């Protein structure tokens, strides 16, 4: 992946869009996992369960797309779980407590989320605060604000169609929330691969100084990426609110770690510059299938935690090992 930022043009053919770019290892892992679960359980291999898994990864998937962008430029965003909670509470406050139409509430929630990201981005670029610290601070601030909206209580009472968006499967297949996730993934893939702006992210992740000298506005791009990541966390919050039909400020604790794990399992390097959204999709699916499968196998909750940890460690170790071999 040696993007020179700017002049990369590729023929848009179908195979290329879904080519894996270094995510073959994770994909093989995913297929083996599916194969094992198909043999080990009666209930895993069915359309209904496959659709359940898609439902279950919606929130994580959308957050992980934003996280992929941030990690590609060599950054990290620890605030997404809290930003998700803040977005949910703003949505609930505007729609239920203040009685505004859902369109206004959704816009408000997304704006609140995006602002968190913009502030993190500015802290990182203008005040030279390390990304880890800037987003750690934002994690605390956004969580506090989310709690302040209702003084810690939950909000219920959304219009009925809102929850139905997460339940009714259009054409027997896609819920609205899953459809939104798929759109986000496709846009993410296309942006990274075919837009100059997307190619520039690889350049920044590879070497910010070289990228700057090549004429990329690194600062503006960085603020943009953190804003986008937060915006997507906010969108994930809205979908979570639809899924739960309620909002509470304690939602999304430690979700940032799941998102980071999914990105890393998908083959994106934490040091930036390599990886992509296709890998992240596979990473998200691995986490989703694993959790679903362990439940179906009736594995004890305590053992589940151990297994999930082992899989994360193994996936990343295997990837590192492969690179060292080259």
């Amino acid at each position: 992946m040696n993007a020179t930022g700017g002049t990369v043009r590729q023929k848009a053919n179908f195979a290329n869009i879904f080519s894996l770019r270094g995510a073959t290892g994770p994909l093989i892992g995913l297929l083996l996992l599916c194969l094992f679960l198909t043999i080990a359980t009666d209930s895993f291999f069915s359309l209904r369960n496959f659709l359940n898994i898609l439902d279950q990864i919606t929130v994580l998937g959308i957050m992980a797309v934003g996280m992929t962008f941030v990690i590609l430029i060599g950054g990290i965003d620890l605030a997404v779980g809290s930003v998700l909670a803040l977005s949910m509470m703003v949505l609930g406050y505007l729609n239920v407590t203040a009685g505004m139409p859902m369109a206004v509430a959704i816009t408000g929630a997304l704006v609140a989320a995006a602002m968190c990201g913009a502030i993190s981005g500015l802290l990182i670029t203008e005040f030279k605060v390390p990304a880890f610290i800037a987003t750690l601070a934002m994690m605390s601030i956004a969580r506090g604000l989310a709690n302040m909206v209702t003084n810690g209580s939950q909000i219920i009472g959304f219009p009925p169609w809102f929850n139905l968006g997460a339940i009714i499967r259009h054409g027997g297949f896609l819920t609205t929330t899953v459809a939104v996730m798929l759109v986000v993934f496709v846009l993410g893939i296309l942006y990274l691969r075919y837009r100059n702006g997307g190619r520039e992210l690889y350049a920044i992740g590879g070497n910010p100084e070289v990228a700057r000298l090549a004429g990329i506005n690194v600062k503006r791009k960085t603020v943009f990426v953190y804003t986008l990541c937060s915006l997507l966390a906010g969108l994930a919050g809205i979908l979570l609110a639809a899924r739960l039909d309620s909002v509470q400020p304690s939602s999304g604790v430690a979700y940032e770690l799941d998102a980071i794990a999914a990105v890393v399992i998908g083959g994106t390097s934490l040091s930036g510059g390599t990886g992509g959204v296709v890998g992240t999709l596979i990473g998200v699916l691995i986490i989703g299938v694993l959790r679903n499968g362990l439940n179906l196998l009736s594995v004890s909750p305590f053992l589940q935690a151990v297994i999930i940890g082992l899989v994360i460690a193994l996936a990343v170790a295997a990837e590192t090992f492969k690179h060292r071999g080259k």
Partner: protein
Amino acid sequence: MKIIKTALVATVAACALSASFSASAGEVKKIGLAVPNLQADFFNQIKLGVEGYAGKLGIEVIVVDAKNDTATQVSQVQDLLTQGIDAFIYIPAGAAAAAVPTRLARQAGIPVINVDRTPDGAPGDTFIGGEGVNSAYEVCNHIIGLANGKGKMAIIHGQKGTTPEVDRFGGCKRAIDENPGVELIAQQWSQQWSPDEGFSIAQNMLQANPDINLIFGQADGLAMGAAKAVDVAGMSDKVIIGGYDGDGAALEYLTKCEGPFVVTATQSTQSMGVLAVNSAIAVAHDASVPARQITDAVLTTCENAPGFASKHP
């Protein structure tokens, strides 16, 4: 690459062909139990009660632990339904007590038994809970009595807005109101009902109000954390602490009969588990079950703690 892609497509297509649905009527062979958090001894005791009793009846129990996350719990309930459970025992996670799992189980047409909390607007076939108000009243009345009916009191609440938090505060408030010599001077909410929260909250309270002599922790974890903070502050001989739930660890503490934490209300968690299984079987056979089934908590001091510690009710 081509082969892998083909395999993926084949997988998805085959998934589509083998859609399976569970149906159930009458016989209960498999029970799904959704628990908010097995780290909390209270829920772990209910789980043990359900598993122990169902095991005797030859019923399989599948337990899922949401780790206090509502979204995780919804996913887990979907997975339980995929496994074709015949009845669903639901202890909602988080304050929002999502109605969605109940709706999903209703769609699948299986009995829903709520334990400890009920989601707003989507009640199950029956609710099994511990009586909270009166028992909390008794605990607070007991510690106020030990302080001769006067003093400054602090309350460490559970997770704000949950049913037990609201009930236990209501009961304790009644005891405070009945004793004009007692003044409620500090209140703080915890997120997880956990000992470390109890410790730090109590420490801050004692820092701000050194004249506190009564503390009510709304769960034993909170009370034991507070007891530690009182020990550290060197105030063990002047502060009296009450707890709630009758956790294993708390019963052991009370059995030793030393330290500031002196009383709790022991919930009949094991029998709640048994009641839940029986209700599930009854509902599956279309027998009528009361909408609310309330078990009493027993006031527990160092006199009766040893009995409960060796055999939990």
